């Protein structure tokens, strides 16, 4: 069970379920495929030693965001068979775009791609980058102190925005 096999397994899982998100006819099934995809990404993060991010990915994305999606889908009652079959032009152009993507990736790989920097060094490192919580704390509250403040402010504004959006205002509802 080398990490390589794990990588290919989780990469296939992630990409496959991501594709299923797009192709699924049922919105709830799409949301669940998104969930699988996100858990796959979290596993990829674990392979990259970013344990905190993996846990956060599961906690925030898989635990809350997708649950919110499901909640809204059920609330709006719009699931089930809402996808019309794609038009022929769409399929052709998608195939063309897929060919372009493959071409791009192949060219990228063919040109020697990016060097994997110092692969040996990372293997010998005592603690891999992103594995310790302490590093995050230090970075967040020294170098990235201003972004942290801004993000906090952003969250506050988002909260206010959601409250305003979901509040019913008198009189506005009649305007159609």
């Amino acid at each position: 069970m080398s990490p390589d096999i794990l990588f290919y397994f989780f990469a296939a899982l992630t990409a496959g379920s991501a594709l299923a998100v797009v192709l699924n006819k049922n919105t709830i099934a799409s949301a669940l495929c998104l969930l699988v995809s996100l858990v796959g990404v979290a596993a990829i993060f674990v392979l990259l030693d970013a344990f905190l991010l993996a846990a956060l990915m599961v906690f925030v994305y898989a635990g809350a965001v997708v649950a919110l999606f499901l909640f809204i889908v059920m609330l709006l009652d719009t699931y089930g068979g809402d996808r019309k079959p794609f038009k022929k032009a769409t399929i052709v152009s998608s195939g063309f775009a897929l060919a372009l993507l493959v071409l791009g990736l192949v060219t990228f790989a063919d040109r020697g791609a990016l060097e994997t920097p110092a692969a040996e060094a990372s293997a010998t490192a005592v603690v891999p980058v992103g594995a310790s919580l302490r590093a995050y704390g230090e970075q967040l509250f020294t170098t990235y102190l201003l972004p942290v403040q801004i993000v906090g402010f952003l969250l506050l504004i988002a909260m206010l925005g959601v409250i305003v959006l979901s509040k019913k205002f008198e009189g506005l509802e009649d305007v159609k």
Partner: protein
Amino acid sequence: MTVGLNEYLYLSAILFAIGFFGVLLRKNTLIIYMCLELMLVASTVALVAFSHFNRTMDGNVFVFFILTVAAAEVAVGLAIIVALFRRRQTIMVEELNALKN
């Protein structure tokens, strides 16, 4: 063949492309929204991979912010979709054509 930076970047590119096509192809706002999330996640894969192989913290911290902002964005976006549905009784983009004529 060992898995290096490039394989992670391929994965990231594929995920991003899938999300992108989802946004273009689907008519359901909720699905479009999920595909947007997929694109964000694809970018985080690339960032974490860069961070891991370059042995710096910056990419990881950036992903931290992406997660935070994505959570806020989903909350606001879904609230907008709900408000939209309340007003128009549909969430299909092709039926949201009030500005057309």
